[in-house]
């Protein structure tokens, strides 16, 4: 692959990189849509991604690598609404040009967990019962409650897999000589 970018531009960018905010790095407007941010990330990757710069000398490749990592960071923050708003308020306070990824959780972290516990009130209720059954070591009860949960959420793959797993465990423990 051939670098599509002028070596002078690489050296210049790596020098001022620390003074740029994420929007400037990606070369987008602070009001840019997620689609535009994604496009900008793709465009920057074409220039700076390690795969795009194999023919450059080692120094320049190193620079590109550093720019590429920073661009990815910017993209990680700006593509997610929750992270982006955390960043925007920090930036508005003139606090910092960067944000730690671990400090700004993504929007779907919560959503993911909510879905794992059930998508309907009844599903959630029976899933919670199954959870406490399990804590109490009551496998049969947990399986029963998950089956109830499944009658409300027939498509919940997580529930199904769990039931299957618990059945396996029950089978294994009943086969074990006591």
């Amino acid at each position, binding site marked *: 692959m051939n670098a599509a970018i002028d070596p002078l531009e690489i050296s210049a960018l790596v020098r001022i990189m620390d003074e740029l905010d994420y929007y400037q790095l990606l070369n987008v407007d602070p009001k840019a849509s997620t689609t535009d941010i994604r496009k900008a990330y793709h465009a920057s990757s074409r220039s700076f991604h390690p795969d795009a710069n194999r023919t450059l000398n080692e120094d320049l490749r190193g620079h590109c690598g550093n720019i590429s990592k920073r661009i990815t960071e910017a993209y990680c923050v700006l593509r997610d609404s929750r992270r982006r708003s955390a960043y925007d308020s920090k930036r508005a306070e003139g606090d910092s040009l960067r944000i730690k990824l671990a400090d*700004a959780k993504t929007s779907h972290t919560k959503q993911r967990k909510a879905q794992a516990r059930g998508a309907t009130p009844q599903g959630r209720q029976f899933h919670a019962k199954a959870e406490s059954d399990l804590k109490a070591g009551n496998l049969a009860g947990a399986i029963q409650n998950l089956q109830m949960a499944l009658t409300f959420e027939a498509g919940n*793959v*997580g529930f199904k897999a769990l039931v299957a797993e618990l059945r396996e465990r029950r089978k294994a423990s009943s086969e074990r000589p006591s």
Partner: protein
Amino acid sequence: MAEIAVGIDLGTSNTCVSMMQNGEVKVLENAFGERTSASVVHFHEDGSVEVGNSAKAKVIHAPAQTVRSAKRLIGRYHFSEEVKKAQAVYAYEIVEAPNHGVRIEIREEEFSLPEISAMVLREMKQIAERHAGDNVTQAVITVPAYFNDNQRQATKDAGRIAGLDVLRILNEPTAAALAYGFGMGLNQRVAVYDLGGGTFDISVLEIGKDIFEVLATCGDTFLGGDDLDDRIIDLLADDFVGKYKINPRNDPYAYEKLKLAAENAKKALSIDEETLVVIDEVMKSAEGETLGLERTITRSEFSQLTHDLIMRTFKVCDEALQQSDLTVRDLDGVILVGGPTRLPMIREAVAHYFQQEPRGDVDPDEVVSIGAAIHAASLVGEAPDSMLLDVTPLDLRIGVAGGLAEPVIERNTPVPIEQTRTFTTFQDHQESVQIRVYQGDHRQADENAMLGQFEFSGFSKGLRSDVKIDVTFEINADGIVKVTASDQATGQEASTQITLSSGLAEEQIERIIEQDVAGRVATGAKAESAAQKQIAPITINGDVPGATAAKVDFVEYSPFGDGKTDLSEGFDNDIKLGDVSEAELDLVDDDELIQLTQEADMDIGAEGITLEMPADQAPDDDDDGLFETSGGDLAGPQIQLTDEKK
């Protein structure tokens, strides 16, 4: 002169090599005209090595000298579940190397897993050289997307040992997507469902002309066609026990026969409604009489036996879709990869789950290697560019006090990426700090894969909390992790590529290359005696996991917190986090669907979150006032995290 670079799909069961020539990708046939070769290595008495389908045929006669499914062991610790399982079912000897590494012992010689894989890769190199009529030294090698750093590094080492310059470690589903979309000018969202011999991966990608962006990838490195076989083996073995009251699982020869029959039955069921398994002789009874077996297996029986395994794949698909913020309705295509996806029951289940028929125009056995070859060619300038923007499959975590591990870089973060955290020392005039790095989804450190531990010393000594050490975690485009540390005051840097037990040290790799272990594939060189081939102990950075309890020796630096206050709190077994922000609640709450193990009780107070350790897990104060974990488990506390909210 055109540069040659090949693509190799190094599979658990089968390996496939492809090459781009004159703008066209070709799957390269081996000397027998086969387009894939079994990833099986057979060791002859004279020390020479045979690789491929003919080696696989030797399993029944010489199971102890024939290594298969090595990919299930590569990059693992000797104490891991997978190694224990392999020891139970494989007849070849799996032994422990220093620092919890794994070696395969054959005819009194020990081989590391990268050496075994290198033999398979060397065979592929030779196949390619026959086709190219020239030396082939550059390759892109694929790995399951869900492979961790240890497994990726070990695969890269295997490439080097085979005499290849590994241009890139590429994720299998990403390679498949590239093969599917390359040069097609597509604008699509696709899911790649890759169920292979030993691993399952699902990746969701957005393809836009020359850009292949992975939105999310999830997987299970314990799930594949081998597991489907196991269910049939159990069925057959139970039948056998019922009939003769002898367990054939305990006889390695009998077991291999069952395994072969099971795999054939499974494959037959991808074509027929039912299949008859006949084994004339499974084994001989104590009296010397021949004990055989005959059993019909129907599709519906097989489907029931394996239902839970198939369901497990969809649980993983759920996760991948959630992580990419998509539903099945957003997908324009579903690509099937891997031998087991030839089974109608799997195709139907996939079609049902994704609410669309999977693509029929993709060869599930070859597509990964074709994608790897396209990328290899594009890296050396022999094919138009296509950008592969991939993600890291697992949370990268750092060990903290209480046996916990805090995420530094979350799974499904695009790579390459870098994050820096600042830490400070725990004691006045402390001379070194130790950092443990993990990959996995668990807050309990020891439930994750430990990547390594490294010691950083040589920073300016000072009062505790005056010394500030920047620790930088980097994940490169191959998904390989690197940790560096530097002293904020002096800028002095210490750096190490993470290597630990399962990994080979640089000197070892060099020695292996010098001995040309992979060369036996070609030359059938005489076996060196075990004495000649000395394996040096692996040196790792810092402590051996499990050997001694780690000590708390540094804390994360907080510009607003008074480190000394946090220190005293560190001694009452608690982790204190600052304000209860939403982010932190998530952090503490980030448990499994249902926590199957006992976990620390959680109190959410007005001031913050306190994680109280159950009494039996509570660290004791020792004489120095430092923590020591009971039982010397892997997850000793090392870092007091006092990351107050700004």
